[in-house]
Structures are given as C-alpha cells and as structure tokens.
C-alpha cells in the first residue's frame, strides 16, 4: 500500500501540472489558430505575410527546439521567461500554427455559393465571415481540432526538459525514488492515455454542441 502511495502521489501531482499546461496552451493555441488562419486569407499583404511566416516557422521546426529557444536562448538577449510561461508559450505557438492551417482549410471548404448569396443580400465582408462562413467552417474544424488537442497533450511531456515538474518529470522522480522503471513509466503512460481519452470525449461533446447550435441557426434563418 505504501509502495502504491509512493508511486501515485508524485504522479498525480504531476498530472495536475500537465492538465494545466494542456488546457492553457489549447486555449491560447485556439486563439492563435483563428488569428493566423483568418490572417492567411486576408487581403492585407502585411497581415497575410506575418501569418504565413508565423505558420511556416512554427510548423517547420521542432517543438523542442522552439521550447529550448524560448527558455535558453531568449535570456541571452535580455528576455527571461519563467519555465511555465516558456512552456505554455512554446506549446501554444506550436499548436496554433497547426490549428491555423485547419482554420484556413475549413474556411476555404465553405462553398462559393454561400459567399455569393451573402453578397447578393448585401452583407458586409465582416458580417459574412462571422455569421455565414465561420459557423459552417467551425463544424468542419472540430474533428481535426480533436486530433490537435491530443497532439498538444502529448507534447506537454517535453516541458519536463525545461525543468517543469509535470507528469513526465514525476515519472523520472518516482523512478529515482523506487529504483524501478516499469511501474513508474507504465503508470505514467496509462495516465496520459486516460487523459487523452477524456480530452477526446470533451472535444466530441463540443463538436455535437456546435453542430446543434449551427443547425438551430440554419432553422431560424430558413423560418
């Protein structure tokens, strides 16, 4: 019993940190996804250019390199980040770049007829984007977003390499404490798997809610 407690207490403490990181970076990453995804389709060349550069840099390099860069390289030019801030920043920026491509793809998949209809009834571009295009695109975005949320959860494990005491860090601590690798890493893998299943279930629930909302909006528009 003591053995089990010695194993589980640090792991559960680490799980709390992992969940905090995953939730925060998913939220910030979500905001970045929409900003850069819509930005990439902008008519303004500056906004479009910045979005493309951001997406290419963060999709084209390793997350671990980005994390080390924020944590080890930035202090040398005078910007010191707390490890938690560096971790959340790297995770959000990385997943936001992947999310941006999902947002862009979903917006482009909305049929041209929808834009033409919006123009025909004299909607402004902004109104068309928010009230016609995005609600329809949002439904398409949800399944790939679900994959990205799990990807992001798995990626949080890398923060253990910039000194944060997350679940993966706790696994190492337990291993050093008990001198046994199998229970520590097996329990850790199982916890990550359960978390991934919970996050996926949450995203499926959100997907159903959004589909229903958009469906209702359609009904009203028709009525």
């Amino acid at each position: 019993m003591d053995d089990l407690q010695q194993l589980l207490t640090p792991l559960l403490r680490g799980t709390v940190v992992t969940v905090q990181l995953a939730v925060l970076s998913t939220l910030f990453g979500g905001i970045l996804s929409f900003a850069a995804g819509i930005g990439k389709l902008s008519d303004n060349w500056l906004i479009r250019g910045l979005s493309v550069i951001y997406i290419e840099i963060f999709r084209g390099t390793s997350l671990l390199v980005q994390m080390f860069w924020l944590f080890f390289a930035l202090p040398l030019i005078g910007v010191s980040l707390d490890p938690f801030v560096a971790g959340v920043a790297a995770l959000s920026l990385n997943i936001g770049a992947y999310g941006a491509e999902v947002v862009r793809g979903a917006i482009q998949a909305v049929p041209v007829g929808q834009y033409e209809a919006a123009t025909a009834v004299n909607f402004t571009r902004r109104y068309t984007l928010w009230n016609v295009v995005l609600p329809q695109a949002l439904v398409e975005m949800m399944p790939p977003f679900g994959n990205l949320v799990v990807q992001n959860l798995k990626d949080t494990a890398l923060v253990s390499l910039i000194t944060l005491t997350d679940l993966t860090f706790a696994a190492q601590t337990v291993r050093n404490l008990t001198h046994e690798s199998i229970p520590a890493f097996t329990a850790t893998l199982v916890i990550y798997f359960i978390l991934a299943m919970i996050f996926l279930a949450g995203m499926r629930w959100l997907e159903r809610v959004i589909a229903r909302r958009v469906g209702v909006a359609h009904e009203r528009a028709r009525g």
Partner: protein
Amino acid sequence: MLFGIEWDTSTNLTFAISILPILLRGLWVTLQATVLGFAIALVFGLVLALLRMVPLKVISWPVGFFTEFVKNTPLLVQLYFLYFVLPDFGIVFPAFLTGAIALGLQYSGYTAEVYRAGIEAVPRGQWSAATALNMPTVLTYRHVVIPQAIPRIVPALGNYLVSMLKDTAILSAVTVMEMLNVANIIGDRTFRYFVPLTMVGGLFLVVTLISSFLVRIVEARLPKDGIPLR
C-alpha cells in the same frame, strides 16, 4: 571543440560559421534516425493494420487497443520506457537504436491508421466486382485493392515522414548526438545558446521545407487511378 572541430567565439558571425560543420554532423544523425525510424514505422504499422483486420476478435481487439495506446501517449515517455525498461530485461541497445525504435513505435500507430483508411477508401463495388469474377481474396488485394490504395496512402505517409523528422529532436533527451543535442553541448561549453539554437531552428526549417516539397512532387506524380502491381 566537438568532433575535433574548434569554434571561434570572437564574433557571432565567426562563431556561427565555425559551428556550422559541427551542427551538420548532428543533422546527419538526425537524418539517419529519421530513415531508420520511418522504416520501422512502415513495416510495424503494416503488421498492426493487417492484424487489426483479422476477423478474430481475440486478435483484432488487443491489436486495436495497442495501436490506440501507442498513438495517444507521448513519444518522450515511450522513449524513456524503452531506454530504462529494456535493460531490465537484459536488452541493451545503443541510445541511437533505442531512439529509432521509439520513433518507429509511435509512428506505427499513425501508419497503421493510414494503411487501414487507404484500404477502406477503395469503393465496395470493387470488392463486389472481384467476387463476381470469382477472384480469390489474395488476388483481389494484389490486383484490385492495393493498387488503388497506394495513391491515397503515399501522401499521408509523406506527411508523417516530415513530422517524424522534427520529432527526432526528442532523442536528445536520451543522449543521442542529433542536431539539437549537439547545439546544447556547444551552448553548455561556450555559454552561448542563442546562435547554435537559432541555427538548429533554421536548419530544421530548411530540411522540412525541402522534404515537404519532395513529398508534394511525389504526390503530384502518382497516377490517381492506381498503380498496377506485377
């Protein structure tokens, strides 16, 4: 000094030029790990995909669970698991090989899904037609299903190859001398992290852009209606 190459810390530019050959040595290890890891993922993923299609639940169910488990847990923890647990069973591999196996294992979960989706995307009518012609299952796979599945499978595999290339940086956690680890060592010895880490970012960007471009060329050249097998 690393790999017998000296660095010159007098200015940022001379430092960058002097460490470039050292980083390229690391890049070579990165590329080797990617090739080996991807080869493992291609073969092991195929085994998983085929076993999952076996009509016996005793086989297909555990294999399906294993695939999902591997896909939904972090590469870093899987890597630690192999690195620390295998020696308990008397299996001692060099860090590089353990790293490539971990990469291959994680991505076999993805490649298994790619194979399965590619085969399932072949229209049912093709199966019916093969049955109507009295074609045995093996021949149906060889001459009807797989040739049509390949154009769907290859682009998805290509994207995972590029993705794996970036994930090799994680092998630095178990002492593999790939590019990021080399940059960290240079940083530790000179107390200058900015230049080497920024260069690693740049090199990764160049390599992923080139490989993504190659994947797109291959994708464009694939005949969309299938590749006949001899």
